[in-house]
């Protein structure tokens, strides 16, 4: 996977994440984490090391656009990328339920990691309240959007391989 493609996808998804909540008057809790979805997408196709690097890059970009310290999301996404990179070899990736489970798991893990890093700086959040109100709907939205994007990407890849085979024969 080309570094340029990964960088463009991560940057584009981060910009989308900044612009979309402002442009579309969605329910506030429905923040779709496009960058997290992009990190998971690349992590599902790479080994744990590269997946972690993609996570660092994606998190770093989110950090630059967010109002907090630089490094909070980089750390969180790096760990998520690494875990997904480890898991992906044993995952049946043709099954969208498995991919949805990975996205939901990552959507739950990301705030836990972010909250723990913020707690180091004395910023405390009400885990349970925020989980029920924000993490659950966001995780569900991430899973739906993620699976849709993965499906589109797979169709494009299938079409490309069909064209390639056609031209070969």
């Amino acid at each position: 996977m080309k570094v340029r493609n990964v960088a463009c996808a991560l940057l584009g998804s981060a910009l989308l994440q900044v612009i979309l909540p402002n442009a579309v008057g969605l329910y506030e809790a429905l923040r779709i984490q496009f960058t997290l979805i992009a990190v998971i997408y690349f992590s599902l196709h790479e080994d744990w090391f590269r997946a972690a690097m993609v996570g660092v890059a994606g998190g770093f970009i989110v950090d630059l656009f967010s109002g907090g310290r630089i490094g909070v999301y980089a750390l969180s996404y790096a760990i998520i990328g690494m875990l997904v990179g480890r898991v992906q070899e044993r995952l049946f990736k043709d099954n969208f339920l498995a991919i949805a489970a990975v996205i939901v798991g990552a959507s739950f893990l990301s705030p836990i990691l972010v909250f723990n890093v913020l707690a180091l700086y004395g910023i405390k959040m009400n885990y349970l309240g925020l989980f029920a109100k924000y993490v659950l709907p966001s995780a569900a939205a991430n899973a739906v959007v993620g699976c849709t994007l993965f499906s589109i990407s797979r169709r494009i890849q299938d079409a490309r391989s069909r064209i390639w085979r056609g031209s070969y024969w």
Partner: protein
Amino acid sequence: MSGNRRRVSIVVVLVAIFVFLSLPMSVSRSVKEVVTGFFSPVLSVCRSVTDKLGDIWEVTFHGDNIVRQNLRRQRELLELRFELAEAREKIKQMKSLHEQLRRAAERGFEVIPARVNGRDPDSWYQTLLIDRGRRHGVRRGMAVVHGDNFVGRVIEVGGRWSRVRLILDVQSAIPAVTLAGEAPGMVIGSGPGKLKMTLIKHNDKVKVNDVVVTTRLKPVFSDEAPLPQGLVIGKIVSVSQEEEGLYQSAMLESEVLFRHLSQLLVVVPK
């Protein structure tokens, strides 16, 4: 790359992340200023494009069929009635805003109108990107209002953009006072959508529906603007004793619909 080298690389990256995390906020701010400044025009263009796309969507999907047009007219009529009611409400609000601006002018404030270009990528930080920056006279620490209500303070300033930390943010702490009993306290963000006034003395009288306003705060840093006093933060909806019993705390409700903020005023103290 061999297994050991990979492990070393990942440790190096993690150490680098921890170094970034331990950097002072001023350094983080400088790095972000460069990056957000670079993408600020992109965000402005995207906002214009999304506005235009909304118009195109309206014309394309709501204007080709007579029946649909008829239904649309009916809906428009209904909407216009609502809009009329809203307009009347807005006139009331405008009068109130005008009054507030007049009072602000009396107190020595000017305002800079700004549009919201983007929001924080995640729900945990409550910040906004606005399209006014240093070139328009915005400084760090300036108060930002919507209508009559205080919504936050400017925390980062670029050439043509600024970042506003909303009062809902968990890192926000604003000195405030109740209008009725003049009980001082500190309004802090308690996560998305929640405001809490803490450090109210045990003896001070606070009750539900008391209006809470900002008190003057002298800037800590030389490049920071002072926080003006008298900007409305919200109304008290519940009061509770803190566990230790030394202080009381109160939950507040702001009139601002924070997720629908599109235009704001940055208050410039003269």
